[in-house]
């Protein structure tokens, strides 16, 4: 109902906020994002975790690969369950793992890998996927057919097979991990963006832009991409956890991160094996990962709402 959309109270509050200068969607979005409490708290928490990961060596007296055979699988001092086998004592605030390495510093080193993989691979898939999908969808016709069949072909390659081939051809290294995961994740993104683009392309405001002489590139940049942002952000917040999990899966197969380096996925899978005798080995990495994923979700929701001008 038009009646509801333009209720007088809303109009008044907007008048107060109106400045003389023109504002863009992005300026408005930033203001709205910082008004969203859940997003702001999430950004702060995520920032703390990131800083801890970066400055991990300064936060703990132990090196991430220092093995102390006297404290194998020992719980932290403050662990409530006193029936466990041993007590790590001292500065092992998260206890130690099954070969006597400090768990706290390993969780932080794991954060480095997991956050890097999660962010970089998602960013790669976001950039390629959005550009590819928007181009295919907007230009359409034969180009669209060709581009989307190429996506279908890549889709049909088994993920593990694809990674193994990459490893064989390029030798194993850390960068390859990003490439492999990013190369798979952008496919879904491209499909989502293409579908959205197809429906937005039909809208009259695109035709209005064409009548105003806006070039194809600028139509995609100024009109299509801001309008596909909602579903894309939701998908991004789903991609980050799936990327982190994909990394742990590859590491588990010996194709990803190698000991003594570690990631959250590796720590969790090790901890899961020792769940009954040494639960702290599962709890700490799992809590870090869960908190991080929650933060990404809240930030994603906040971004989606902030970029939607109808939400005030």
């Amino acid at each position: 109902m038009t009646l509801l959309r333009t209720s007088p109270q809303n109009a008044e509050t907007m008048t107060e906020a109106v400045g003389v200068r023109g504002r863009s969607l992005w300026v408005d979005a930033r203001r709205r994002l910082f008004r969203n409490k859940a997003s702001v708290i999430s950004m702060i928490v995520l920032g703390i975790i990131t800083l801890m990961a970066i400055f991990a060596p300064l936060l703990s007296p132990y090196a991430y690969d220092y093995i102390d055979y006297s404290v194998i699988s020992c719980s932290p001092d403050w662990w409530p369950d006193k029936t466990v086998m041993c007590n790590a004592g001292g500065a092992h605030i998260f206890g130690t793992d099954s070969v006597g390495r400090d768990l706290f510093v390993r969780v932080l080193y794991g954060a480095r890998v997991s956050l890097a993989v999660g962010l970089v691979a998602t960013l790669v898939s976001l950039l390629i996927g959005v550009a590819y999908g928007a181009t295919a969808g907007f230009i359409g016709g034969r180009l669209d057919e060709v581009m989307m069949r190429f996506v279908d072909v890549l889709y049909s390659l088994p993920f593990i097979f694809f990674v193994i081939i990459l490893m064989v051809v390029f030798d194993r290294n850390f960068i390859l991990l990003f490439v492999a995961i990013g190369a798979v994740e952008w496919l879904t993104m491209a499909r989502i963006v293409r579908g959205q683009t197809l429906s937005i392309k039909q809208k009259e405001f695109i035709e209005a832009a064409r009548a105003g002489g806006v070039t194809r590139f600028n139509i995609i940049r100024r009109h299509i991409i801001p309008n596909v942002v909602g579903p894309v952000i939701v998908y991004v917040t789903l991609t980050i956890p799936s990327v982190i999990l994909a990394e742990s899966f590859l590491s588990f197969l010996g194709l990803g991160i190698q000991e003594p380096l570690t990631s959250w996925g590796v720590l969790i899978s090790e901890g899961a094996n020792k769940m009954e005798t040494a639960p702290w080995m599962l709890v700490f990495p799992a809590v870090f990962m869960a908190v991080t994923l929650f933060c990404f979700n809240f930030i994603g929701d906040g971004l989606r709402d902030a970029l939607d001008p109808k939400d005030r």
Partner: protein
Amino acid sequence: MSVLEVKNLDVRFATQDGEVHAVKNANFTIAEGECLGVVGESGSGKSQLFMAALGLLSSNGHATGSVKFRGQEILNIPTRQLNKLRGTKITMIFQDPLTSLTPHLTIGTQLIESLRIVHRISQQEAGKRARAALDLVRIPEAAQRMRQYPHELSGGMRQRVMIAMATVSGPDLLIADEPTTALDVTVQAEILDILRDLKRELKSSIVMISHDMGVIAGIAEDVQVMRYGEIVETGEVDEIFRAPKHPYTRMLLDAMPRIDSIKRELSPAAPISQSTLLNVDDLKVYFPIKRRGLFAGTKPLRAVDGVSLQLRPGETLGVVGESGCGKSTLARAILKLAPITGGSVVWCGRDLGPMQESAVRALRKEFQIVFQDPLASLDPRMTIGQSIAEPLKTLRPDLPRSDITAQVREMMGHVGLDPNWINRYPHEFSGGQNQRVGIARAMIVRPKLVICDEAVSALDVSIQAQIIDLIVKLQKEFGMSLIFISHDLSVVRQISHRVMVLYLGRVVEIADRDAIYEDPRHPYTRALISAVPIPDPALERSRKRLRLTGDLPSPLDTRAALTFLKSKVIDDPDAEQYKPRLMEIAPGHFVAEYDAIT
């Protein structure tokens, strides 16, 4: 005894923005066999009033007061009791017949099913009654139509099926909620005829809800005018139209464009001798449509099939026609937004047809377009300031930013928007305000031609009048030419110097506006004009009508374009047909060849 008696009816909706009081203290009665017209603009509560009476409010709605049907209280009674009345004693027709019919059942099945449930009669008996009902609403070949699915029927046919369903059980009260709003004028005229006949034959009471004073004038006996949920005026139809008491009724009647008179002064067009701005010659736009079958290839849909026109500086050309006649495609082809199949579009001596898009772009600041749907034509994620500035930014890249902002503000003033609103988003505005934004966006580059594609069709009558005034005012100020496309012949008359009538991609008549409205020659033009309802009940009753029968034929069938020249038809749907020539019957008045009506 009255059929429906409404007392102190209030309808409220609980929304996130607080309570909305949609209907305020409504009181009225509907007598046996009476036809009540309910008029109001969007948001006036005219639909919700009757939805509430029938217990069809959405879940956040709440109705209080009393609604009595033949003395029995029906407001807020349990659905099971209500269902004994709904669909049999009280029936409803809605605006969009496609959404009211079940898509996966044939219309025969739907009719028969409802009959059998209500009357507990045999399949054969129900089938017989259903056929009779379809005959009553003048559906040709009713027996065959019963085996068809809703999507196979045209809008007009579907609305007839809805009327048949609503009337088949002989209701005491028929509520028609904007039943003709989505239909073309000629189809609307037929549907109104059918409703008038039914009223005589069935002796049901009818409630006609409409925003169109003309429709009400033609059918209602009593009229009730609503605004902001209040009934502001009630009275007999002749009285209301002759001597409206409430200022709002008067305003509505004044705002309503009338096909039989002109209310506005137009700026004079440049004399003919001056060079033409736009010369369209034998323009053709064909779209390839896939045939059925794997390797069947395509068949051309002739959206625009040989249209020629000239436009002088400062002149307004009205283009009218029913849906599917190619008027929007014509506009887009002239702007090079649709591919041109044949013919030429010459703009100030340059042929746009063979030009590259980059070359056309340089010319785009000279011709602009205003769209039908004000909200859909604005990017929801851009402030209106950005939307208005966009053509200027792309077409005049030499301008510094501050100049652009200054021009945007200036143009906002011209179209009646507060320049301080530049940072607002389209969803914060009403339809009329958004259309002003659309007009500002078109005018910002000071074009020589603006095409208005149904620019006022989606707006309420009072807003429509304001926008037309605005367009006429801007034309006086800036002297641009206009191509004003509309299905509404009354609106076109108010604004155009010349009028062109399109039928299935071809011009059937083109002339100065007074000539075409007062002396229409082509049978299609005459049918169109006589189908337009006039907001004057006395005149409506006495008017002679020229009716076209049947649906608009499929534009894929090449025979269709010769509906008015049957004598030249080659009986093959794919054949290249005879092209009727345009004859000049008076200076500047061209009419396509047609068979004399016998």
